[in-house]
C-alpha cells in the first residue's frame, strides 16, 4: 500500500496524544515528523509530552520545537481539560532524546521539499507553527498537499460562545493559513463532538492491560471531569478526527465551503465563519468542512490502534 506521508503539528494534549497513537498505527499513513506548539499547554510541556509519547509507543519520531506563543497574543493553556502537564498528569517515563535545534517551520519545510505536492500537514493545535512556516517559506503553499486541522466550528464555540479553542488561541495564525490558498480540511466541533470515546471504551482499553490502553484511561481523567460538566457522555476525540479523515474519508460526511476567521471583533474573535448554510457565499470556497462521522467505526478503529492490533488485522 502507498502510505500517505504526514507531518503532525500538535500541542499534546491528551487528544493529540491519542491522535498520535492512531497516526502511528494506521497502515494508510506514514508519519515523518512531529512539531510542538504552544496551546493546550506551554511549549515546554507540549514538546516534552511528544517525547514522552515516543517513549510510551517505543518510537523515535523526530520532534521539533515551534512557537512559544501565538503570533500577536498571549498564550492561554487549557489545563482544565488536559491537566497541569498537558497530558492528564499521568506519570510517564522521560526517555532520553535528541535535542534538535532545528525549528518546527524549518523542519516542516525541509520535509515538504522531500515530498513535493504530497505531504499532508495535520495540525491539532493552534495554527501558529503553520502560519510561521507559510510566512517564512512562500513556496510551502505549493509543496503541501493539504492541511487537515482540528479547529473551529460551523455553529457554536466551546471556549467562547462563538469560537473553538484552537482557532481562538491564535486567530491571526488561522487567518494567515486560511487565506494561503492551500486546500484545507476543517475538522471542527461539528464533527469532533460526535467522535465520542465513552467510559466503556476506555474501560475496555485499560482492561487490556496494555500500557497504551491504561494510559488512555488515565490521561482522560481531567478531560472526562470537564466533559461531564458540559453534559457530554464521553470525551470527544477532537484531534483524532483529521487523522482518521485522512486515512478513512469514507467514514465522514464533508462539504465544500468558504471559511474565514474573525480577527477584528471581541465577542466573535476566532469564530470560523462558514457559508455552508447561508444564502450569501464567500467568493472562494477554500475548505472542506467535515460535518459528521460514523462514530462507531472510527472509535473501533481507534481502539484497535491504541491496542496495537491494527496493523496485524489489516496485514
Amino acid at each position, binding site marked *: 500500500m502507498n502510505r500517505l506521508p504526514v507531518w503532525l503539528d500538535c500541542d499534546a494534549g491528551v487528544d493529540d496524544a491519542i491522535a498520535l497513537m492512531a497516526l502511528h498505527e494506521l497502515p494508510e499513513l506514514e508519519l515523518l515528523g512531529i512539531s510542538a506548539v504552544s496551546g493546550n499547554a506551554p511549549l515546554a510541556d507540549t514538546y516534552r509530552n511528544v517525547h514522552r509519547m515516543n517513549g510510551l509507543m517505543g518510537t523515535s519520531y523526530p520532534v521539533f520545537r515551534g512557537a512559544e506563543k501565538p503570533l500577536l497574543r498571549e498564550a492561554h493553556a487549557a489545563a482544565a481539560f488536559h491537566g497541569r502537564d498537558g497530558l492528564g498528569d499521568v506519570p510517564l517515563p522521560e526517555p532520553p532524546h535528541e535535542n534538535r535545534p532545528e525549528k518546527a517551520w524549518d523542519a516542516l519545510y525541509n520535509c515538504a521539499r522531500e515530498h513535493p505536492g504530497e505531504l499532508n500537514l495535520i495540525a491539532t493545535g493552534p495554527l501558529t507553527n503553520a502560519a510561521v512556516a507559510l510566512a517564512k517559506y512562500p513556496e510551502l503553499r505549493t509543496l503541501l498537499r493539504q492541511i487537515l486541522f482540528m479547529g473551529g466550528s460551523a455553529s457554536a464555540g466551546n471556549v467562547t460562545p462563538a469560537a473553538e479553542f484552537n482557532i481562538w488561541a491564535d486567530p491571526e495564525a488561522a487567518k494567515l493559513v486560511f487565506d494561503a490558498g492551500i486546500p484545507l480540511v476543517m475538522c471542527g466541533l461539528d464533527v469532533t463532538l460526535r467522535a465520542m470515546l465513552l467510559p466503556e471504551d476506555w474501560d475496555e482499553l485499560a482492561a487490556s492491560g496494555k500500557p497504551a490502553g491504561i494510559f488512555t484511561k488515565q490521561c482522560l481523567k481531567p478531560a472526562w471531569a470537564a466533559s461531564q460538566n458540559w453534559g457530554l457522555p464521553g470525551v470527544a476525540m477532537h484531534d483524532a478526527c483529521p487523522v482518521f479523515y485522512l486515512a478513512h474519508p469514507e467514514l465522514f460526511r464533508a462539504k465544500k465551503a468558504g471559511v474565514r476567521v474573525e480577527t477584528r471583533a471581541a465577542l466573535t474573535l476566532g469564530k470560523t465563519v462558514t457559508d455552508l448554510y447561508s444564502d*450569501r457565499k464567500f467568493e472562494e470556497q477554500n475548505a472542506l468542512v467535515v460535518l459528521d462521522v460514523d462514530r462507531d467505526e472510527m472509535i473501533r478503529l481507534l481502539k484497535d490502534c491504541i491496542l496495537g492490533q491494527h496493523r496485524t488485522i489489516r496485514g
Partner: protein
Amino acid sequence: MQNLKPIPVILDGDPGHDDAIAWTLAKASPQLRVLAVTSVCGNQTIEKTTYNAQRVCTLLGLRVPIGKGRPRPLLEKPMNAPSVHGESGLDGPALPEPAFPVSGLSAAELMAKTLRESAEPVTIVATGPQTNVAALLLAHPELKPKIRRISLMGGGLAHGNWTPAAEFNILVDPEAAKIVFASGVPILMAGLDVTEKALILPEDFQRVAALGNPVADIVAQWLEFFYVFHKNLGYAGAPMHDPCAVMALLHPELFKTRALYVQIETEGEYCRGATVGDFYGVTGKAPNAECLLDVDRAAFADRLVEAMKFYGEGAK
C-alpha cells in the same frame, strides 16, 4: 388551546411581504389584540415602509394608530432590500391607498404611550430592524415591566443571509439589537434557524388563493412574489420569516425552542450583526432569549391558510 383573553400586541415592522403576512395573521387571530402599529426602516426607506404600513392596515381594516419610525438605524446609514421586496418595498398586487393618516407620535412615542395606557403588559412583535424598540428601551427604561416580551424576527444562531454570519434585520442595526438583547426584557427569537424551515409551498399558495376572499387573494400574490425571489436561491417555497414571530405566540406547540444566552456582535471583519448563542453554557450567563429552532412545517402552513378564512367570514 385558545387563550380566552387576547394577548395585547404592538406590531413593529418594515413591510415587506413577510411583515405584511405576519400582520395579516395577527389581525385574523382572536388570540391577539393589536393596539398599535409602528414602521421601521429596513426592507425599504422609512417613507416607503410607513406608506406600506398604512396600505396594509387599510386593506386589513386594522384601524389602530400608526407611528412612523426613525429614518435611519441608530448609528449607521440605512440599508434596504429592494432585491427581495421590490422598489416599493411591497411590490406585487395593487393595494388600497391609505384610508387614514399616521399618528402625530413617532414610533417610539406611540409604543411608550400604548404601554403606559395598557392595563396589562404588552407583547411587541418586531419584524424589522430593532431600531424603534431600542429607542423605546433607551428612552423609557421604566416601561420595561409593561413589556411582556419581545417576539422578534432576526438573526440566525447557525448562519446569516445578508452576510455568511449575519441576518438582514440584525445587520441593518446591530447596535439596536444589542440594546434589545441586553435589556432584560424576555425575548422570543425567530431567527433563520427556524424561519428558513417555515416554508409555504406553491400548493399552499393555491389553498390560500382558493379561499376566494379579497385579502386571501392578495396574500396569495405576496406569497408568490416572495417565492420567486427565494426560488432562485434554491428554496422549495417562500420562507415565512416574519410570520414565525406571530405564529409562535399563537401556536407555540408547533415549534421546538431552546432557551439561550444570545449576544449581538457589533464589530468585526466578517461577524458584524451576528447573533451569538451560548449553546455550551461557556459564559455562565442565564438565558435571555427563547430561540425557535425548528417548526412543524405542514402544520404551520395549515394554520396560516386557515387564518386567512377570517377575511371571508369575519371581515367587518
